[in-house]
């Protein structure tokens, strides 16, 4: 997962992302790849508690050199897409867990990445919020976005097109559903 997200580089082997071999890239180049190609959704949400929702969503754009007005506009658009258009000035502490995770999804979306990596995005959520977030992912997927989601829960996994089961670090089975996309 960390290698997929370019947070770590493989010790052996290689990893091509969108046609580029990222295993030999420098720290700064990797940061650029993460910034442009990948959107992260974490189990812990990892929102900055002191910033309002839109500033959290804006964060990846800050590192692209985009103008302030455009950043804000795109952040608000992303929040509207996840159904939080009326919560843009709320701080994470003022939002429910499900809402916070949706802010995190908006943050992953805002740079329009090739790939969204979700590391147990429903792990900290109740079933109702989980369903919300999964519905959001399904919707994004239907719009043609690649999503890699890691989960322990079978019913969450069931919503994917392709399931790769990993047991003790080994690929156990790859249940291919119609169109596999990444790797």
């Amino acid at each position: 997962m960390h290698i997929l997200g370019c947070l770590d580089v493989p010790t052996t082997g290689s990893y091509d992302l969108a046609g580029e071999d990222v295993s030999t890239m420098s720290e700064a180049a990797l940061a650029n790849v993460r910034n442009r190609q990948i959107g992260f959704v974490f189990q812990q949400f990892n929102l900055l508690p002191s910033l309002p929702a839109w500033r959290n969503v804006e964060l990846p754009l800050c590192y692209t050199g985009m103008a302030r007005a455009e950043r804000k506009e795109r952040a608000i658009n992303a929040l509207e897409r996840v159904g939080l258009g009326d919560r843009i000035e709320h701080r994470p502490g003022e939002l429910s867990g499900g809402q916070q995770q949706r802010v995190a999804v908006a943050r992953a979306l805002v740079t329009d990445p090739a790939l969204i990596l979700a590391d147990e995005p429903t792990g900290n959520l109740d079933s109702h919020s989980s369903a919300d977030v999964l519905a959001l992912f399904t919707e994004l997927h239907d719009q043609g976005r690649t999503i890699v989601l890691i989960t322990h829960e079978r019913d969450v996994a069931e919503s994917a097109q392709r399931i790769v089961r990993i047991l003790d670090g080994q690929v156990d089975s790859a249940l291919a559903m119609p169109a596999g996309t990444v790797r």
Partner: protein
Amino acid sequence: MNWRETFRTALEAILSRRMRSSLTMLGILIGIAAVMLTVGLGQGAQAQVRAQINQLGSNLLIVSPGSTTSSSGIRGGRGSASTLTTRDATALASRVVAPDIAKVAPVVTGSQSLAAGTTNWTTNVVGTTPDWLQVRARSLAEGRFFSLAELNSSAPVAVLGSTTATELFGGRDALGQTVDINGTTMTVIGILNTAGSSTTTDEDDQALVPQTTYSSRVASSGNAAGVSTLYIEAASTDSLSAAYQEATNALLATHGVTAATPDFTISSQQSLLTTATSTDRTLTVLLAGIAAISLLVGGIGVMNIMLVSVTERIREIGLRKAMGATPSAIRRQFLVEASTLGLCGGLLGVILGLVGAQVLPHFLSQPVTIPAIATIGALGIALIIGIVAGVYPASRAARLAPIDALRSE
């Protein structure tokens, strides 16, 4: 992330931890204020000495009997109190002997009791010539100074310092009144303008009489021509050293002594200034050293807080990295944060220093002059301290591996 963006983020980080940030700034603040006040005190003292010396006449040479043989202050020419005479003064005043000397005023002084009616006042009585007024760069508040004719005729006339006049006559007009000096009744013909007190004597508390009057009527002992000091005014400040040479040569010749065993000493206001300045400098360096140490401690405080901040915000750093922050962007963020802390502390320190410069003279009776360059310099130092203190914590933050940073709890 551009600079403005980085600066805003830094400011938010500082403001979100107000208590800690202000305590950190306090360290820098105290250091900067201390440095500024030390510099200000040193400058103030120097300016004071310089003003005093300018007041006394900057192109003034003072010839005193005896010679200083070493810096330890051992004097040669024992019993030479009368080696200087009015003839020396006449010789030095000659355009031929000493072209760079404008005027010479021989001075003989003694402490005497003055009486005006029933009022008594003991002060310094000075016997001199009419040139004294110009040589010592003084002026008269009222009346006139004594003339050459009065000097030649040993006239019983006196010119009083403002303090002396007030002490003897109270609020009354002293001009035209008489004053008894050692049994001789003298007419007050002039009052000096105030000059303020120098480090050694009160220039406003003295009575001046013609030198001849002093030797014939005031002084108790013999030597009519003997004087205690010669004040020499050089033609200009630039010709001071030439005048010094000419005076030395002329006096050596008239006294018949060699340069190895002079029986007189010539000092200039410049040498007094040097002494005063070097004393001040020692003190200033000492105080500045203490102030610099307090600044250093302030800088360590900033570094400490930045290290804590990096550790505390390890997840934030990891997140920013995952979102695409390059190591240099992270480094810059923390550097800007540290230097902002330093600069804000410095700014507050400068304000405190400037306020202190206004308040302190009331308690110390010592002027505090803070030059503009010191203000700018202090701000620069505060900024540099912030940057230097931020380098290590910032590069630590930049080097953090994003996964480790994200994983940490």
